[in-house]
């Protein structure tokens, strides 16, 4: 039975979600073989997200059945405030099953999804916003260039037919550095690399703003989208743990709903995969998990202006003061509940 007054009903404000949520999935079943460096790579990803995202956001991790050591590390990162919400699943639900579980209920206006092996670079969000502002009707915006494998990857069926003179379309082969990095990061070589060297990328330019984008409909490794758009394509089909067919479903749905699917023309992300490429070591060395980036809550406590609140915060500074407040709280509770 209820005893006393529930202080949670006394008008305390609950946390209000930020405009942007960044979501990732972690699956590291063992820390050997293919997954030997995966935890380290995830932490680099996390540091890059924290360091290069220029506005407040909620960072949500879905652990899709990783081993105990990895879960413990995630719990520790949650405790330190680097992760805002951690979802632990005993079973591997597959990528789409996990995304179904996370994405539908996020109240954030914007959602960014990224695989946990993606390295974020400075400017990724700023450039994505520019595309959103210059090309109305964006469904998904990727911050890296992705080469299309299938026709469906190109998306933007209706946009390609637009007669709006503000938009100028062109085609081009990938610039050499872009092609090299793309293939290197994915371990692509030989015939397939040559195929990509010659591939035609579809570019669009807004002549009013000068902003350019690639029409690329397959940014599964990372995308930015409005929550309301994502809710229209859920649930994603659940099946194989990792399969290109599953990714294609979301591209098709975005296209069928006549949303634009664009990417930046430079890569503001790097696919780290399962090992740290020597080429990105200088970038990695510039990253660190800085506690100052996540101590916003403590600042908030100190921001309230009333004198009584300031007095409480002042008393709470010391161990003795905290003890006294706790005792006072407990005594008051006992008085009112007896």
């Amino acid at each position, binding site marked *: 039975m209820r005893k006393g007054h529930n202080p949670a009903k006394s008008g305390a404000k609950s946390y209000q979600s930020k405009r942007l949520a960044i979501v990732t999935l972690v699956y590291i079943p063992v820390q050997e073989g293919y997954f030997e460096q995966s935890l380290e790579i995830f932490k680099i990803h996390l540091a890059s997200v924290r360091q290069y995202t220029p506005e407040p956001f909620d960072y949500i991790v879905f652990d899709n059945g990783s081993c105990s050591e990895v879960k413990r590390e995630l719990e520790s990162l949650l405790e330190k405030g680097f992760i*805002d919400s951690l979802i632990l699943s005993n079973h591997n639900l597959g990528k789409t099953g996990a995304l*179904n579980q996370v994405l539908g*209920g996020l109240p954030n206006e914007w959602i960014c999804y990224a695989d946990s092996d993606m390295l974020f670079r400075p400017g990724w969000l700023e450039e994505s916003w520019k595309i959103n502002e210059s090309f109305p009707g964006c469904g998904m915006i990727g911050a890296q260039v992705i080469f299309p494998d299938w026709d469906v990857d190109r998306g933007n069926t209706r946009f390609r037919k637009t007669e709006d003179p503000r938009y100028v379309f062109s085609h081009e082969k990938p610039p050499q550095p872009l092609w090299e990095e793309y293939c290197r990061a994915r371990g692509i070589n030989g015939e397939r690399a040559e195929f990509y060297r010659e591939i035609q990328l579809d570019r669009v330019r807004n002549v009013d703003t000068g902003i350019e984008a690639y029409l690329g409909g397959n940014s599964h490794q990372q995308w930015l989208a409005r929550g309301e758009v994502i809710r229209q394509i859920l649930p994603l089909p659940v*099946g194989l743990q990792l399969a290109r067919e599953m990714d294609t479903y979301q591209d098709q749905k975005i296209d069928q709903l006549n949303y634009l699917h664009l990417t930046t023309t430079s890569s503001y992300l790097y696919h780290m995969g399962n090992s740290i490429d020597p080429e990105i070591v200088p970038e990695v060395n510039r990253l660190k998990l800085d506690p100052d980036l996540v101590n916003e809550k403590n600042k908030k406590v100190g921001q309230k202006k009333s004198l009584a609140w300031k007095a409480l915060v002042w008393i709470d500074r010391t161990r003795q003061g905290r003890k006294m407040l706790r005792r006072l709280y407990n005594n008051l509770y006992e008085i009112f509940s007896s």
Partner: protein
Amino acid sequence: MRIGQNPAKFVKEVAKPGRVTVAILNYIPFLSGFYAEMLDVLKACLGSIWENTSGPYDLLVFDNASCPEVQQYLLNRYENGQIQYLILSERNLGKGGAWNMILSGAPGEIVAYSDNDCFFYPGWLEQSLKLLETFPNVGMVTSRPFHTREEFYSQTVKWAEQTSGVRLRFGRFIPWEVYLEFDLSLGQSEEEIRQHYESTDSVRIEYQGLTAIAGASHYQFLAYKSRLQQFLPFSMDRPMGQVKQLDQRVNETGMLRLMTMEPYMMNMSNTIQMPRAADLLQSSSQTVAQSHTRLVDRALVKKPLLAIYDAIFKLYYQK
């Protein structure tokens, strides 16, 4: 860069979640004052689910920024495989924020939601499922009858009045002891409860051989996940107190809100004491008697002391 093939790409099947996800929302910011016994309450709640739930289900627990001791308890249960999905939030998202994640993210087709202070009796899930699956267009089923607000089940009554083959009756169909037990657990006085009981009828609905009481509660309910999707996401700026939005919206859309005829769950609130109604009556009347004599119950004293109590909580809460 990627070296080798990701072995996950060779896996041809993924785990298939149970049809029912039992979802518990937990919030225990510290283990003193109002929350002194809450870890025991949580243990009793989860224990009653493990003990008294038959049929396949997955258990999902959403922890809304509890203290480390509580999170550790949940992590241990998760590691033991007694909790299939555990969501840990570093900040309290309020009930609305938690519901957003639970009601959209629960992997099962049916969500059996409950606050963390609910004790389940044997048969709770089967009996609730019967109502959910037999009555048409059901929005919510709660696993015991108690007094709920009429305006939140008006559409259920309307449906019953307009549907042939449905028998609708108004009267006192909830036994006094069942009614009393639950409302006492909410901290109401016996006087208040009796007044409610005598001044309000409950609504009994018979359909296809099953009987239910009209009404349901956001506190504990079963629902088809797909039917609740339209109400998401909720926007609530306080941790508690705005939850009636769900009851209201479900009713407004014409979906049925039903309760089982028998009590299959009980509210524990913040203590694990669930004495018989007679014992509770005694303690509640003692409280009433005391209230006339104590200085601290006079508004002039009580108000500032409660303000201090709430302020200290907020200080802890925001950390």
